[in-house]
Each structure stands twice: as C-alpha cells, then as structure tokens.
C-alpha cells in the first residue's frame, strides 16, 4: 500500500459517520483535545481535566488508592473467569479447584485471584496510612474517610469469604477460627452463628452462603461504596495535595 492510499484510507475512516459517532475530538495532542478526551469519556471522567501538580507526585500518593482499585478490577475479572469452573457444592468444590490447576489452559487464574487478594489488603492498608499521614481526612473529607474504613472492612470480608471456597483443610479450619472470633463481638450469639454458617457447623450451607456473599453481595456493596468514594474525592477538590 502506498503512502497516499493509506492517508486516503485514514481520512475516509476518520470522516466516516461511524468514527465520528465514536470520537468527537482529534488525537489528544494539544491542550484542547486533551481536555476533551478526558471530559468526553465516562471512565476518564473519573478524573478532573487538570490536577494539582504536587498532588499526583508518587512520593505523595504512593499510588496506593489507584492500585487498590486496579486490584479490585483484577479480582473481578479473574473471579468471573473462575466462576465458569467452580461449583459451590461440597462434593465438587475441591475437585473443581484441582481441575483448575491440572486441566485448564493458563491455569494460574486462581493464583492471580489469591495473590491479588492478598496484595489488595496490603495496598488498601498502605493507602489508609498515606491518607492519615498526609492529613487528607481533614474537612471536608471526613465522610470519605469513613467510607474508606467501610471499604477496608469489605475488602477483608471479601478475602475472608473467598478463603473458604477451595474447601480444603486450610480453608475450613481458618474459617472456623475466624468465625469463632467474629462471634465474640457484642450482640453475637447462637443465632448470628447460625446466620453466618447457614447451619450449626461449617457445611454445605456455609459454603453456599460464603459463595453468594463473595461473588455477589460484597462486590456489589464494594462497587457502590467505590462510586461514593471517588465521587466525594472529586467533590472535595480532587487529590488533596501536600500542605
């Protein structure tokens, strides 16, 4: 293909109705198109068009909030893929996990999901440290700090409910110990134990409850709180920036 025809092809493509229905601005090369690229895209529009230079320095943010969000997305993607292979039934669950390792192409899905989950707990903890140390919970950001604490708890709950699903010895005994600890909390009694375990002891009921909580309930609540968290950052003036 000669240069001329390539240019003509490109021009024809860029002037076509389809292309122009997708992109309403040129390649983001100058100030105007760069602003438009962020403004006209729903995902990029999570960000403001311009940010405080001192606020986006890596030494200030540690990038931990962003990485936590990215790890959440990675967990969603790998988790959905895992759901194709896994049945939350005590006769099948363990076998499905073994088959994942042995028979599924690129059999590192479960590894990505598990190590990603551990990394997410570390990154969210570091994010909390950063926000505290830079005083970024100060007015008007008090409420967003509380949303953040809820997100921290949800991250742990997500990890905890996922821990049971492989249905091996490690899983059920860790969950046994964990739920016993949770039941020391005030107002917890035999009824709340039954509520969590879906039975008197860990069994099929527990597996199903933890599965549903892990793949639907907690991710949904987390996603909603993430929306609130990001929205409030924007409303409260973006990344806080150093003093």
């Amino acid at each position, binding site marked *: 293909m000669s240069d001329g025809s390539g240019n003509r092809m490109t021009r024809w493509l860029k002037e076509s109705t389809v292309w122009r229905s997708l992109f309403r601005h040129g390649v983001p090369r100058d*100030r105007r198109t760069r602003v438009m690229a962020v403004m006209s895209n729903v995902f990029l529009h999570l960000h403001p068009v311009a940010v405080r230079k001192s606020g986006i320095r890596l030494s200030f943010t540690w990038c931990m909030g962003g990485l936590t969000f990215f790890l959440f997305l990675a967990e969603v993607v790998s988790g959905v893929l895992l759901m194709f292979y896994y049945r939350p039934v005590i006769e099948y669950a363990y076998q499905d996990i073994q088959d994942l390792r042995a028979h599924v192409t690129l059999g590192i899905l479960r590894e990505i999901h598990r190590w990603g989950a551990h990394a997410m707990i570390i990154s969210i903890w570091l994010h909390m440290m950063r926000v505290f140390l830079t005083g970024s919970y100060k007015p008007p950001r008090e409420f967003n700090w509380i949303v953040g604490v809820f997100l*921290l*708890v949800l991250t742990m709950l997500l990890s905890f409910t996922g821990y049971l699903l492989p249905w091996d010895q490690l899983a059920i005994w860790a969950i046994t110990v964990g739920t016993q600890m949770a039941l020391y909390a005030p107002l917890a009694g035999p009824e709340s134990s039954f509520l969590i375990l879906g039975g008197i002891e860990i069994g099929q009921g527990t597996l199903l409850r933890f599965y549903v909580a892990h793949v639907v309930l907690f991710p949904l609540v987390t996603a909603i709180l993430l929306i609130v968290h990001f929205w409030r950052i924007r409303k409260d003036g973006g990344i806080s920036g150093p003093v």
Partner: protein
Amino acid sequence: MTIEKRPNATADKNAPTQAPSEAPLAAPGAGPKLPGPPGVPGTERFRLLAYVKQESMVRVDKRPDETVLTWPHLLRAEFVMLMLMTALLVVVSAFIRAPLEEMANPVITPHVAKAPWYFLGLQELLSYFNATVAGVLVIPVYLGGLMLIPFIDRTPYRAARDRKLMWVFFLCLMIGGLIITFIGSFFRGPSWQWVWPWEGLFFTL
C-alpha cells in the same frame, strides 16, 4: 425595568433582530442608551434578589496552585503503575502456587488452626484476654476509633509537625497491629504455643 431589557447572548437568539443592529447606529455621540455597556455610571441598575447565607455545597480549598493536564500527566503514571502491577501479579502467580491442602474434613482437626493472616493480630490479641471481653472491646473500638479519627482530630493543620500527638497515636496503633500480626503469623504454633520461626513455620497464605 432595565434589567429585563438588557440584551444578552441567550436572549438575542430568539428576539427580533433589532437590538444588535440598532446598537451601533445609536452609539456615536448620543451616548449609551438604556441597555448600556457595563461600568458606565447611570446606565446600570442592580437589584438585590436574595442573600443566600449558606456554606457552599462544595467546600473546596481553592488555593492558586500549579496544575497539569490529567491527559497525559496523571494517566501516564496510572498506566505505568497498572502495567507494573499486572506484570508482578502474573510473574508471582506463574511461579508461586496458591496453597491447596487435602480435602476438607470436619472430623480431623489440624495441629495448627489459624485464621487468615490479616486476622492473626486479632487472634493473638484474643489469646491475651478473656475472649468475650476482648471481642466486645477490640473490634468495635478499633473500627469505631478509626472512623472517629477525623472528628477527634479537629485541628485545621495537616502537616505532620503540627499534629505530632495524632501521628504518634496512629503510628503506635498501626505498628502495634503489625507487630501482633507478625507474632501471630510466625511465632505461634500448635495450640497457639510460642514457637520460634527456626523451630518451625506455621504460616500459610
């Protein structure tokens, strides 16, 4: 009266086209007519419609500060971090297997029963106190305390040097949490007895 008659950009579109064409004709010598240019004394009238005594809904600290465009400055940094994290995750996952023990059996209790690692600090703490008291105190106080931080620390300062007490308090809490998590992870063995890491490691991720 004057306010309603004043031409503006939005009103012009629908109004008959007299106003714009007349304005230049009337201008020389005669001086500004009713819809005069802003700032000429005697041609403008202001009316106080309402005085809204309220905090702004968006309480933002708008200091003059140097800003850069999100595209490319922020997005580039985010993309690089995303790629690094993906690479790290894939490499770690390719080389380190996720643990999987034999199939669950509620009848066989293992020697060491530990919660997931992020709860091991709590498990360690619970081993010090009467379980119910510790349970009643630890979880609500820890979480409640975390949530109340912005309301306890009411000083307007953000710099570390201006809130040393809060820094020390929080860091003690965090480092204390790290230490007991570390002890629970690497120094506890069967029936929660103290075990040095070189005597045996009872820790699974």
